[in-house]
Every structure is written in structure tokens, then in C-alpha cells.
């Protein structure tokens, strides 16, 4: 019960955060000198009625505060307006968000799968050549600009023809069977996942190594060793559990970094995700779309942090006691 109360409190806390985020992003975009309806007006396929409806919806003839109120109210109702090409923004987001979530969750899964063991190995073999090599490799991974790495991999794909060059699906995607579709998407995901994986692995491995080294230094590990427990039990049963807890907090940050890193990678690979959507929207100054995707990015980030916090409460009883 205590647990649910805490989780509930934590969820309530995100509401003011969302309001501040929306205020900040709303005013940043209103700072822009661009007429939010300019693109819409220029598009001949859009009727003047639609433009008028948008003007009414956004309250552009009213003061900024009322504009914000109108925007926020229709946002809560789920009405995000239309893009400059006349499509529904909510429809567009529905297409793109799952793709970005797919990409980032695969990357997070893989980095944890590889990064945590590598961190443990580096910590256990502290100051040996293995540790040194891992440090050098992660330094290299951290230093490659994501877009440059993506361009190089694309070059590799073009030269060898082993991988598809960008996109998420092949042209004949709709004809494929279910299994075929799965394989097709997986095949297209290999390169973008590899770029983001390489870049985010370094941070995770280093953090795990540092946590593990801290824990291995602590008294209870010394005691476990003194008691004569086998080294594997000391490491995997006593040390690991405590070293992993701070990593869960990091999960939220990792997600934030991935959303940002994914934008450039998606752009280079022509991957239909939220990052590329917001980039294209920004380049076309499509205000509705920019606003909505910015908010969705923030919502995803806040939810990511929330999930990380809840996970931490479940795995680390000390936090429950404190609260």
C-alpha cells in the first residue's frame, strides 16, 4: 500500500512539470517571427475555411495568455491541429512515436545487455590490460559524432550492399507475410541501432564500472570475502545487486540522451521517427507539428524518468523507508 501511495505521489508530481514544459515551449515558439499559419495559407489545397478554423482554434487574434490557454485546452482534449500539408498532427505523431520507441527500447535493451557485463568485467579486472582496452574502446565510442558515424555506415551499406540504405521498410513491405515483415524491419534497424548502441554503450559501461568499484570497496564485500565465500558469489550475489541500483536512475537520463541522439541518426538514415519528424517540421517551420512533437518528446522523457523511479522503488527498499 505504502508503495502505491508513493508511486501515486510521484505521478502527481509530474503534472506541474508538464505545465512548465508546455509554457516554456509555447513561449519559445511564439518568440519566432514566423506567422504560424503562413505555410497553411500558401498551400492551395487547403481551403480558407480550414485556415480560419485553425485561427479560431489557436486564438491568434487574442492575447498570448489566452492563446496558451486555448492551445493547452485543445492539447489535453487530444486535438493537435493540422500540419502545413493539411494532415492531422495527432495522426502523424501516432505513426512516428512507436518507431522512435522501438528504436530506443532496442538500443537500451542491448546497451544494458552488453554494457553491464562489460562494466563488471572492467571493475573486477581493475587496472589490468582488459580494463585499459575497454576504457580505450569506450572513449572511442564516445568521441564519434553520431551523424558522422551514421554517414560512414551508410557508405559501408552502399559499398557492400549488405544492408538497406535507410528507411524502416522495403518498398514491397505490404506484400510480405508476418514473419517477412518482422525480418524486414529488423534488417532495416541494424544500422541505426548499431550507431546509437556504440554511442550510448560507453556511458553505461563506465557508470557500471564505477558503481561496481565503489561497492567492491565497501565493508560488507570485504566481510563476505573474509567469511570465505567464493569470489563469484561475492560479486554476483552481494556486490552486483547494490551496484545495479544507481544504474536504474541512469535509465531516465539514458533515455533522454537517446532521444536527442536518435534525432540525427534518424535524419541520416531517413528513419521515420519522432526526431526526424521534428527536424522536418522545424525546417519547414510547421508550428503545430513542432509544438506537438516537442511536447511529446518531453512527455516521453518524463514518463521514462517516472518508470525509472518506480523501478528503483521496487528494487531498492531503502528508498521506501526514507519516504
Amino acid at each position, binding site marked *: 500500500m505504502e508503495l502505491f501511495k508513493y508511486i501515486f505521489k510521484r505521478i502527481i508530481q509530474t503534472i*506541474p*512539470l508538464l505545465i*512548465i*514544459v508546455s509554457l*516554456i*515551449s509555447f513561449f*519559445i*515558439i511564439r*518568440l*519566432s*517571427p*514566423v506567422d504560424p499559419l503562413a505555410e497553411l495559407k500558401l498551400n492551395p489545397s487547403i481551403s480558407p475555411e480550414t485556415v480560419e478554423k485553425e485561427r479560431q482554434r489557436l486564438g491568434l487574434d487574442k492575447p498570448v495568455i489566452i492563446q496558451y490557454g486555448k492551445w493547452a485546452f485543445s492539447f489535453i482534449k487530444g486535438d493537435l491541429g493540422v500540419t502545413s500539408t493539411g494532415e492531422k498532427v495527432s495522426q502523424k505523431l501516432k505513426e512516428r512515436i512507436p518507431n522512435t520507441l522501438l528504436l530506443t527500447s532496442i538500443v537500451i535493451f542491448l546497451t544494458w545487455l552488453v554494457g553491464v557485463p562489460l562494466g563488471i568485467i572492467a571493475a573486477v579486472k*581493475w587496472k589490468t590490460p582488459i580494463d585499459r582496452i575497454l*576504457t580505450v574502446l569506450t*572513449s*572511442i565510442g*564516445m*568521441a*564519434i*559524432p*553520431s*551523424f*558522422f558515424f551514421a*554517414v*560512414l555506415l*551508410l*557508405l559501408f551499406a*552502399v*559499398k557492400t550492399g549488405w544492408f538497406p*540504405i535507410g528507411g524502416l521498410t522495403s518498398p514491397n513491405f505490404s506484400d510480405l507475410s508476418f514473419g517477412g515483415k518482422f525480418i524486414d524491419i529488423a534488417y532495416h534497424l541494424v544500422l541505426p541501432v548499431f550507431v546509437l548502441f556504440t554511442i550510448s554503450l560507453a556511458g553505461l559501461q*563506465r*557508470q557500471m*564500472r*564505477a558503481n561496481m*568499484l*565503489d561497492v567492491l570497496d565497501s565493508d560488507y564485500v570485504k566481510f563476505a570475502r573474509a567469511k570465505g565465500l567464493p569470489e563469484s558469489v561475492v560479486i554476483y550475489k552481494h556486490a552486483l545487486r547494490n551496484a545495479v541500483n544507481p544504474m536504474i536512475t541512469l535509465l531516465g537520463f539514458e533515455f*533522454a540522451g537517446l*532521444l*536527442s*541522439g536518435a*534525432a*540525427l541518426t534518424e*535524419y*541520416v538514415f531517413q528513419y521515420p521517427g519522432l*526526431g526526424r519528424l*521534428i*527536424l522536418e517540421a*522545424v*525546417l519547414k*517551420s510547421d508550428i503545430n507539428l*513542432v509544438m506537438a*512533437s*516537442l511536447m511529446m*518528446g*518531453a512527455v516521453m*522523457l*518524463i514518463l521514462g*524518468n517516472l518508470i525509472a523511479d518506480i523501478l528503483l522503488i521496487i528494487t531498492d527498499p531503502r528508498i521506501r523507508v526514507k519516504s
Partner: protein
Amino acid sequence: MIKDIFKQLWKDKFARIALLVLGVIYIALFLADFIAPYTKDFSDRTMAYVPPSKLFTIDENGKLSKPYTYNYVREFDKNNLEIKYRLDRSKKHYIKFFSKGQPYKFLGLIPMKRHLFTTDRDGRIFLLGTDINGRDVFSRLLFGGRISMTIGFLALFVLFPIGLLFGGISGYIGGRVDSIMMRFAEAIMSIPSFYLLIILASILPSGMTSTQRFMLIVIILALIGWAGFARVVRGMVLSVKNQEYIQAAQSIGASKMRIITKHLLPQTTSFVIVAMTLSVPSYILSESGLSFLGLGIQQPDASWGNMLKEAQEFTNILYRPWLLTPGFLIFVSVLAFNLIGDTIRDILDPKSKVR
């Protein structure tokens, strides 16, 4: 203190190499006008996408000669429908060192004509080939590096005072002020930073001079990073604000601002130094990403990011690999900064084992 850090850095093998690499890069950028054979605005439209010049030191008779090069001639291969570049072996162009070439102003002040190396008037020396406008990639790398390698530092000098003050005030005053200030910082952190970055860059008005644009991009980069930094500073201030020396300062009537700036913030010095060196690379990467998308530094100004913009085309990365050189330079300098930052952390904070 700075001297001590430097001494210890020099002892570490990796850090020493990194320092040397960065030293060479920064000296080259400082002397860019002199080292570059061409000025920033030089372009030869007939020489678009020319491959790197070939240098010869042994002439056609097999004898040692002064270094010379041949110009490239562009030819259209009708059979394969492609443009080819052939060496025009009819005329040798000797490379001249410390001789007069295009006029420039050294550091924008002293008018000079001497270049480290040039060739004769109708010869062309393109060490790393040319871009779509027939501009020398090698020269532009040097001029672009000036922007790419300083923008991070400038952003830090805007960001750190803001973050320090914000975190200091929030932590010391506490209570409601603290919670409002921290909610605000958290809200900034809740927006994916790259999204915020491109949106801020895109609302910059278009009719700006390149200096104005540069300064505004510095400010935008700073706006992205301060919040996370301020939170850490607040945490550190919280941990020392109840110590006796602070109480002593309060009892002799020091003002709040004085306590924050003179007594609390100096406690964060070693963290600030480490955070600064470790965040320079992320700003270099952000700037290059922004310029790569065309939202950062604009043509005709060069930066490593906007030079890489040409790598967005397949034909360029396939047939003109010399256009990728800025990417390698970004990689090398970011790696060097990271190595130095890691080593400084080990020196200042021996307990931390993150490496």
C-alpha cells in the same frame, strides 16, 4: 592549482598525447591565415570537386627535384558518362615556401601576404581536394576549426556563471524559492536537449551577420546545458551550507550574495573544472550536429559541421572521400578532450573511479 593539474596531466601517457594533439590543433588554428594556402573566400569554380593534389619530389627522369605538383583538368568521359580529373603534365608548378600569395590580415589586424606554402600564380595546390564551389578543403578546415573549437569554450563561459549562481541561490536560500527554481530547471531538463537546440536555432532571424549568428548559437548552446549543471551545484551547496564557517560568516553579518559567491561556490571549484573539461566535447558535437543540419553556422563561413553537410550526398561520400576529413578532426579533438577530462577527474577526485 592549475599548474599542479598540468604537471600531473603531463605525467600520464594518454593525457600527454592528448595535450600535444590539442596543442598542435590550436596552434594551427591560431596561425590559420598563414598556414592555409588560400583565404577563406577563395574559390575557383572551374576546379569543383578536384581530388587532392599529387605532390612529386622525383621528376620524370627519376631525379630528385624540388617538390612540384600538376594541375588537374576536368574531362567528360562520353562512354561512361562521368566527369574525370586528369593530371595536366605539360606544366610543372613548383611549391614555394614562405612566399607571397593571396593577401590576408593576420588575426584580422596585420596585413600580410606570406603563406607557409603556395605555388605559382596559375598553379593550384589543394592538399585535401576541393568542395562543390572549388574551395580548398584544407584551408577551410583551418578556418572552420576556429569556429568549431572555440564555440564550446565560449558556451561554457556563458553557461557556468548562470549555473553556479542559479544552483547557489537555490541551494542556499532553500524552501519555496528552492523548489520553484528546481522545478524550472527540471522542466528545462525534461525537454530532449537536441529538440530544444534545433528549435531555438530555427527561430533565429535569417538576416543576421555571421558574427551575430555565432554569438547567438553560443548563447543557445549555453541555454541547453545550464540546468543539469545548476542541479549538481545546488546539491553541493546543500551539503556545505550548514558548516561552521558559513555560520560564522552569517553571524558577522555577511550578505546572502556574499556568502554564496565567496564562501559556498568556491567549494565547487574542482567539480567545476572537471565538468568544464568534460563538457567541451559535447558542445563541439552539438555545434557540428547543428551545422550539419544547416541550422548552425551558415555558408560561406566554414565550420567542421557545415563542411560535413556535403557528406549527406551519396555520390560525395562514395567518390569524394576527402570531404569527410572534418569528421575525423571532430573525432580526434573530442577524443583528446575526453582523455584530458578523465585524467583531470582522476587527479582532482581520486575517490571517483569513473574513467
